[in-house]
């Protein structure tokens, strides 16, 4: 298993008056090269689970192993280093910085890795060509279309060739055509060997034939129907 969670719980603000239990006893395994959809309503805990898989923070209790690395009690610095090498993120609304050019947005994950400018540009251009947006390389990201923005976000998630792609509500603000296009790209990436976890409550995502497994989350627990 590339992603293995066992009895994972997450409590925000533990011990304080505003304590929130976001996840309780999550057991989840994701095999390498598979595509899993985390389905559930807003506030169900999908993003928290995605954040734990994405090494943004460790679980409060339970075991989480991502790409053979145990996350529990791993200091923040090491979580960041592991995230850099292992996880590519695609955000809701894509979280592209509009003032930066398309090229600059795509190469952002490479800056703290000390990748020289020439190599950064080379890697970015390969992805831009792959997603047919090389003509937009020098455009400010705030001036490109929604479909192009989506491809920029995917390119950014792939720039460091991470084995795991996590997508948080990627189609929440896309029309049907763009949502279908997004899933087609995900399918191609899965075929290329990437492991993909998508948090979504969009039927176009969880009913897509490329999805190997859909996990329903409700009130912070995996819901077995």
């Amino acid at each position, binding site marked *: 298993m590339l992603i293995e969670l066992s009895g994972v719980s997450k409590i925000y603000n533990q011990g304080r008056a505003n304590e929130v239990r976001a996840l309780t006893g999550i057991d989840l395994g994701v095999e390498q090269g598979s595509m899993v959809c985390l389905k559930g309503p*807003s*506030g169900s805990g999908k*993003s*928290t689970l*995605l*954040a734990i898989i*994405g090494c*943004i*923070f460790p679980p409060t209790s339970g075991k989480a192993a991502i790409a053979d690395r145990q996350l529990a009690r791993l200091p*923040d*610095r090491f979580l*960041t*280093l592991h*995230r*850099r090498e292992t996880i590519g*993120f695609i*955000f*809701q609304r894509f*979280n592209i*910085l509009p*003032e*930066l050019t398309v090229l*600059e947005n795509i190469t*952002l*994950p*490479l*800056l*703290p*890795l*000390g*990748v*020289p*400018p020439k190599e950064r540009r080379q890697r970015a251009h390969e992805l831009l060509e792959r997603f047919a947006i090389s003509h937009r390389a020098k455009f400010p990201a705030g001036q490109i279309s929604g479909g192009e923005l989506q491809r920029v976000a995917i390119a*950014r998630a792939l720039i*460091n060739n991470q084995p795991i792609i996590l997508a*948080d*509500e990627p189609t*929440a603000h896309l029309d049907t055509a763009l949502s279908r296009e997004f899933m087609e790209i995900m399918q191609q990436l899965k075929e290329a060997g990437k492991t993909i976890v998508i*948090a979504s409550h969009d039927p176009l995502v969880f009913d897509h034939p490329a999805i190997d497994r859909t996990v329903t989350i409700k009130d912070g627990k995996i819901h077995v129907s």
Partner: protein
Amino acid sequence: MATISRTNLEKQLNILDYALSSLWRRRLKSLSVLLVFAAVIFLLASFQMVTQALTDKARQVLVHTPEITLQKMSAGRQEAIPLAYQEQLAGIFGIRKVVPRIWGYYFDEVRLANYTVMGMAVDQMPEGARLDTALASGAMPGPDEQGRAVIGQAISKALALEGRATFSLFRPDLSLKGFTVSGEFSSDTDILTNDLMVMSLADARDLFALPSGLVTDFCIYVANPKEIETIAKKIAAALPSVRVLTRPQIQKTYQVVFGWRSGFGSICLLAALAAFVILAWDKASGLSPEERREIAILKVLGWETSDILAVRFWESVIVSGLACLAGMTAAYLHVVYFAAALFRPVLMGWSVLRPELQLAPRIEAGDVLLLIAFTVIPYLAATVIPAWRSATVPADSALGG
């Protein structure tokens, strides 16, 4: 090991590159901060440079002053000194020359200007101290030459001589005393001679109606300049009622005067700097929703808190470095080409006849470092320390609910 350090260097260069692009993206904000900061540095640096230049100028010019000056004190105030002391002083071993002098201020009511009048027996002064070198034209009046005077550049302008060589001043009884200009002081010595009028001892006595047998002070020249302090002590012991002023003391007084004025101005300007730093702190500690979002995105994309702090650090270094460079260059130009027009009234007194000096600022590494310590370092602290709070924005805030 070499690969790791190269990667680290590349990383820092990448972060620096990002900081530069970040400043460029917020260019209006960056430029306004830079301009205000540069203005504060300009004011402080100007003050420092003018003070330095004036002190240097005073030191150069004070070479012409006597090694020891004697004045008679009575009830804590200066009064005329008997000429009879001259013989007593000449008997002190080590004294080369004793030159009597009459000096005072003459207020020109027509032009509302104060002139410094000095009557002395120039011929009695030793070689090298005769003020001839301070002259731009003409010659010092001889002991028997009545009604002749050497004047400073500002007096020449104030009297509007325009080719004429004569002018008149009022005696205390309001009768007129006529003078012929026998020479003009060089503008190089403006700081001391701008409002100076030198004449014979007899003319000065006549102008101020000072009784014979009295002068205002004695100029004493010593054989060995290293013995100034020793001789001063001998004089003080021999004539307890006189005030003994040595050249080093006068030099020090000038330095203190300029230093005090500069210090006063600097304190006012430091208050402006403090206000700017507080504003910078306030700005840096507040975080707009866009900035929070950017930090969260960068952290999810693998940026560490230290990387984000490094961006803030480089941004502050670039802004403060450029502000420092611009402020100090502007200060230099202000002092050299505009004769420190903004601060002349504060630093050089309020005399109507202000000297038109050609100031040459001396820039020393120590002064530059001091200025950096008082401006750049507080700015860095005010922007980087609160940035720590900003940089700890949790990465998960970039994710949905």
